[in-house]
């Protein structure tokens, strides 16, 4: 089962869903917090619901307040980066570029992509963590190739 877990993790990295920061977080898991990464990811998805709603509401305004949107996205990016959500982070960066360019359509389009990546990652990590719980504690820092 550990092999299956390692393979799943490798796949998440190969497909660009996660980056090195995820490993940094796994390195922090200890007896006090054996499921630290899962806790962080759960906190992220719970905490970011409000932010997603704020961005959606802000995108309905006409004209768009690009400065406000950039602020929201800066926060989203910071949160996403903290556990290695690579694709989500990339969409955040793209969104902010469109904000700076004053490109409303670009912002709206990118936000749809971002929500897709955000939702996909959530599903994939749910499966990963379920398997991780079944597999039990791993040896420290199995870095993907």
């Amino acid at each position: 089962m550990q092999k299956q877990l390692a393979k799943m993790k490798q796949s998440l990295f190969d497909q660009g869903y996660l980056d090195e920061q995820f490993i940094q977080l796994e390195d922090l898991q200890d007896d006090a917090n054996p499921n630290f990464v899962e806790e962080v990811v759960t906190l992220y998805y719970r905490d970011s619901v409000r932010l997603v709603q704020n961005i959606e509401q802000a995108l309905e305004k006409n004209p768009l307040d690009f400065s406000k949107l950039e602020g929201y996205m800066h926060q989203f990016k910071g949160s996403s980066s903290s556990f290695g959500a690579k694709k989500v982070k990339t969409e955040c960066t793209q969104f902010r570029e469109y904000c700076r360019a004053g490109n409303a359509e670009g912002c709206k389009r990118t936000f749809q992509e971002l929500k897709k990546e955000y939702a996909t990652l959530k599903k994939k990590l749910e499966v990963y963590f379920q398997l991780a719980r079944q597999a039990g504690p791993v040896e420290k820092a199995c870095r993907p190739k």
Partner: protein
Amino acid sequence: MTGNSKNKMSALIVDDDKVVRRVHGKLLTQLGFETNAVENGQEAVDLFTSGECYDFVFMDMEMPIMDGTEATQKLREMGVKSTIVGVTSCNVEAKKQAFMEAGLYACLEKPLTRDAISSLLEQVTKK
């Protein structure tokens, strides 16, 4: 270093993001710090005003109510001698420069990593 009765270094995490506070809190705890966390610069200033003291302050740059630049400036005006480290993913040089000039010891990339903190500690203990 002031430390505390257990001779651990103390760190205050100042960040408006709950996830970042959790991650940085765990990282710093594992590296041997005793940590506390607040959500914005005003809360950080209030803690020091109330008499609390920290060896290190890890200060986010962009926060509501009071941002990191203003909070750092205020803390230095108050005579706070803690090692205040900026933590930001912002890549606007002018903003980072202003942040540094407010009184930071250093500015690190967000999210913090084990290596970045270890390097920082090495530099700080040399001074």
